[in-house]
């Protein structure tokens, strides 16, 4: 299978409201996005956030109330699904149960009325690509979940679509297979170079495969960026809490200077990196990831430059590779994760500790 020139996908102010009352507010509200040629963009969000509806609008299964869908700058908003040249991989795979693996994969080629030798050649090639040669004559119900998944992918890519759309494709697989399949999908997508939109609610999956992630909330795009950007500098409480786990520490901005801000935290002044401090008064939240929180025995000295505060361990969960502590600091509870507990030892619940963190790992919420 040759690598095709990926298409550029652009959504311009797309909105969609469902008529039925239980669907509540707008499913998709004023979403604008650009997916660059060959890029894999993930729509990530909790269920009901509008990510699947957005994907279905791109596919043409749903028509937006307002806004446009452009593929390579051509407006396809009014185009029927079957004219859009897309490959869609469904959550339940949607393999035709009455057709063999071969005929499932060949379906799109047969619809194009391609000649038999061409169909055979291309189906054979794509089945090899997904690692299922020799499966041609089986029926979907004779395949495992992972195999069905591969057939679904093969069926979607064999027609050499301009866009590849995935709707939670791994959610029906068990945890181990999910990790393996997402690596395969990622490799395949890179190899084929097809512009891809991928929907998932699993942030780890999104971080593992995406070039960029668009976090969606209540029908809107909350933030777009690489996994690293989103984790390091979340733009809102929602994004901070949805991508990974987070401590949000209330603080007060004292001074702002180029590239940094001085805030009051735990009754001392700390300077944290901040390229742009959001408006909204001096009261801010500081983002502190649990793994950036250090715990030290009382009396031990913290590494240079770190800020420390006293705390009391209120809860402990031993998870093998790591320990999660809930520590009470200034009357609020703080989550701390400590790796390699066999080496570092454990703190007892109820014990007094020193909590430390490096100013560089603190970030003003909403500051990029």
């Amino acid at each position, binding site marked *: 299978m040759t690598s095709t020139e990926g298409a550029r996908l652009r959504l311009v102010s797309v909105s969609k409201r*469902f008529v*039925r009352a239980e669907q509540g507010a707008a499913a998709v509200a004023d979403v604008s996005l650009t997916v660059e040629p060959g890029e894999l963009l993930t729509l990530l969000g909790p*269920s*009901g956030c509008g990510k*699947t*509806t957005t994907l*279905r609008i791109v*596919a*043409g*299964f*749903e*028509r937006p109330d307002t806004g446009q869908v452009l593929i390579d700058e051509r407006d396809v908003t009014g185009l*029927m*699904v*079957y*004219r*859009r*040249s*897309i*490959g*869609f991989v*469904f*959550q*339940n795979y*949607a*393999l*035709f*149960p*009455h057709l063999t693996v071969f005929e499932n994969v060949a*379906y*799109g080629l047969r*619809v*194009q009325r391609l000649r038999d030798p061409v169909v055979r050649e291309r189906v054979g090639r794509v089945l090899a690509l997904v690692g299922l040669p020799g499966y041609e004559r089986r029926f979907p119900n004779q395949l495992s979940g992972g195999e069905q998944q591969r057939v679904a992918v093969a*069926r*979607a890519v064999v*027609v050499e679509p301009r866009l590849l*759309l995935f709707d939670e494709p791994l959610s029906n697989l068990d945890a181990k297979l999910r990790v393996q399949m997402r690596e395969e999908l990622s490799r395949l997508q890179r190899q084929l170079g097809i512009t891809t939109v991928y929907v998932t609610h699993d942030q780890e999956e999104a971080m593992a495969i995406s070039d960029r992630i668009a976090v969606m909330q209540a029908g809107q795009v909350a933030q777009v960026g690489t996994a690293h950007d989103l984790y390091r500098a979340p733009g809102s409480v929602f994004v901070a809490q949805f991508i990974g786990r987070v401590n949000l520490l209330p603080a007060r901005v004292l001074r702002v200077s180029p590239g940094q801000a001085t805030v009051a935290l735990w009754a001392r002044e700390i300077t944290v990196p901040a390229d742009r401090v959001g408006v909204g008064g001096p009261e801010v939240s500081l983002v502190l990831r649990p793994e950036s929180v250090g715990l030290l025995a009382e009396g031990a000295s913290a590494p240079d430059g770190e800020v420390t505060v006293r705390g009391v361990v209120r809860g402990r969960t031993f998870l093998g590779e790591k320990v999660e502590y809930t520590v009470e600091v200034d009357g609020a509870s703080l989550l701390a994760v400590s790796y390699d507990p066999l080496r570092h030892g454990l703190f007892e619940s109820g014990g007094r500790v020193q909590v430390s963190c490096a100013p560089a790992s603190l970030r003003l919420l909403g500051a990029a």
Partner: protein
Amino acid sequence: MSPAAPEGSSRAALRDPVLAPTVLLLWAAVSLFVLYPVTRLLVLTFWDGGPTLAPVVELVSSWQHRRALGNSLLLAALVGGIGTALGFAFALLAVRARLPRGVGGALDAVVLLPLISPPFTAAIALIFALGPKGLISYHVFGIASLNIYGLGGTLLSETLTYFPIAYLTLKGVLGNIDPNLEDGAFSLGARRGRVFRTVTVPLAAPGLANSFLLLSAASLADFATPLILGGTKFPVLPTQAFLQITGLYDMRGGAALSFLLLVPALAVFIAQRWWTERRSVVTVTGKSGAATSIKSLSPGAVALLALVCAVTVLLVLTFYALIVVASMVRALGADNSLSSAHYAHVFSGGLKAIRDTLVIAAICMPLGGLFAVVLGFVVARTRFPGRRALEFAAMINYALPGTIVGIAYLVAFNDPPLALTGTAFILVICYVFRYSLAGTRATTALLAQIDPSLEEASASLGARRDVTFRRVVLPLIRPALLAGMTVLFIRAMTAISATIFLVSLSWSLVTVRILEGITNLELGQASAFSVLVILLVYAAVLLASLAMRWLNAGNLGQAGTLLGG
């Protein structure tokens, strides 16, 4: 998050190059063959140079017709009540008494008999068994004064004919009740009777109501049984309407009588729809994990149920045995010597009717089957303005008693430019629009289990809607198509109430020949025709069941409930 229908909005559907013409075609067909005749019937009743209520007022003021209305309603209520009770007994026994495997199957086979029999079968058998010189009443018990003509005979015959509808409906309902609910009641200390009263019956109540309404509708619509057994003592609306037209050539009077019947029939139909939609509340608990055995029936109760069912089964079997015997002897009850005369007649003089019926059935099946699945698909899987209206309009001919449909067709298609009565065409059309509903319902039921993503997958791979229908949907709903076609075949072989108005010398039907046999007092001939029809239909059902098994699609059970009416 994903709505049921692909391509959400109604407006979008109208631009679909395949859907729009299909919907237009369906509307055109339904308008011409459903709405137009009914409208003509209403116009004939209520318009005479201007709006008028005269024909209806005249009817209601006539003592005879008022009595027919009262009788129809009384009969419908009695058949509904007794038939439901009997069906419930059968269903309890089948679902809850852990019968040996063979017995359950045999029960189903016997119960199917009345459902697939031509009309009159039970009536003829009743005359043989309990009539003036009845084999049972006179020859066994020596009673000469027993009169089966009237309410009693009609009620007995209709109940035996229609209780299988209740049985099939209630079997499904009881089977869907989670046994854990009963176990729960037991665990809270309730005794058997109490569990039955406070858990089982309330959960089955919507099913019981549904079954009562189905049976009432079937009885309201029944034309054949009261024609034979009602006599002048027990007039009901369908027979009165028939006699008004064929006896008195009073089309307007017949139309007005039809209207009188239309009101309760439609009321019952709408009530039944309402109940069926409510029923989903009950099955919410779904399937239970572990199938526990049922304990809410005491051994005594099981024995009582078994007795009731055994007597009923015996009665049904006796009736059918009588029909078979009557077809093989010169004159049952009078001259019991073996004779092949009746069959000789069937295969000589009767051959044309058999051939005509089979030809019409053969045309009906693919036509009606296709209509049924396309309608089912369009209604279940697409959105367009007026979708619900189309669904309802397509159901009207099924919901109305056959007599009304027949008279409406007679009114609408007797004169140019649409002088179609007496042609094979009108018979086919009548069956297609009256009996396709089974296929449509089977289609929507099947589609409910098929994820719309299959169709979306096809569309995403470049297939237009018609290509998707042909290559993906149709292969998946083959069982529904088969069920629909089987019901059409059975109906084409056994229906009479509507088609009696539409037959002619050039196109006759077996059922009409049976009626002629009865009115000419040639019961042996009528029996021979009946046996032949039963054998043909049984063969068809058997064939369809085999095909179903081959398609891996369960049984014809659901279609069975649609056979009544």
